[in-house]
């Protein structure tokens, strides 16, 4: 378990370093995710302990958002002053994105399946 946590942390660190090294427009953890993905491709399977650790973390993702979300309490001025544009923009944009993504994938995937003999 400790080994798998170390792998995740090291991938993130390597990601941060590579992003700086090449001036990539990516956050470090995303580069770290790509590194781990390539590592898994080379390895050819997910080690059991890595599987357990990632299930544990990803199964409780919501928890990790809590400390940042409580930050609402220090952003109240801006959130109250611009409540209408923020609220409407977030809701409209989220629902539109959902619609566009869902319909695009459904259309393309159905077409791809039909094209297959």
């Amino acid at each position, binding site marked *: 378990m400790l080994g798998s946590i170390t792998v995740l*942390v090291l991938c993130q660190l390597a990601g941060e370093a590579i992003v700086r090294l090449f001036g990539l427009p990516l956050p470090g953890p995303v580069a770290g995710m790509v590194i781990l993905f390539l590592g898994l491709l080379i390895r050819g399977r997910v080690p059991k302990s890595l599987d357990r650790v990632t299930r544990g973390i990803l199964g409780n993702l919501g928890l990790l958002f809590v400390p*940042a979300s409580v930050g609402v309490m220090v952003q109240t001025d801006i959130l109250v002053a611009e409540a209408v544009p923020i609220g409407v923009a977030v809701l409209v944009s989220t629902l539109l994105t959902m619609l566009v993504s869902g319909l695009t994938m459904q259309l393309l995937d159905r077409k791809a399946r039909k094209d297959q003999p």
Partner: protein
Amino acid sequence: MSFDPRAAWDAIISSPMFGLALTLLVYQGAVWLFERCGRRPAINPVLVTMIVIIAVLSVSGVTYQTYFDSAKMVHLLLGPATVALAVPLYRQLPSLIRSWPAVLVTAVAGSAMALISVVVSARLLGASPAVQLSLAPKSVTTPIAMGISERIGGIPSLTAVLVVLTGVAGAMFGTWVLNLARVRSPSARGLAFGISAHAIGTTRAFQEGETQGAYAGLAIGLAGIVTAILTPLLIGWLTHI
């Protein structure tokens, strides 16, 4: 010896463990409530936890900074959690090989829609430039969104809050919107949840089914990468047309 509840209470709220304990306890309580209420999207555990913690902090007079310093351990795990998304991505490899062009096109179309629609609508409604920039990466997971926000000149802590609001909105209305649009394919539903509402939407997608959840998890990372590349390229144009 004495009996001093006041001193005991002070010891609790001034302990460096207070924020961490509060976060863990309230979140688990919120998850329990969520399960008890038949997983109704309106009782989103992150939203409930946020409201309860803010109430506790306000009553006990603990500042956000003090709370955050204590709960930081949980926040820091967002980085390794983002790295961990490589595992569901790898697990979907067979279906990804089959449908990667569709997945990629969807990720680009959805992420572009998220970025353009939020900046343009916020601008039309009179949001300040700082808010427009902070809103731009709202559909991707927190560590990525905060990084993008910082890069383009937004307020990262405001972005963190907007990301949660977006996730809750997606989790609350996603099933309804997708049903309305007759999106039935599980992979399409999963991608829609992941691209528009990151990890909080993914939690909802997993409740719909395993395939939906896996595709949503895959979409978090993919949309994160696409948005990290698109936002700096398009933001100048979006805020100045």
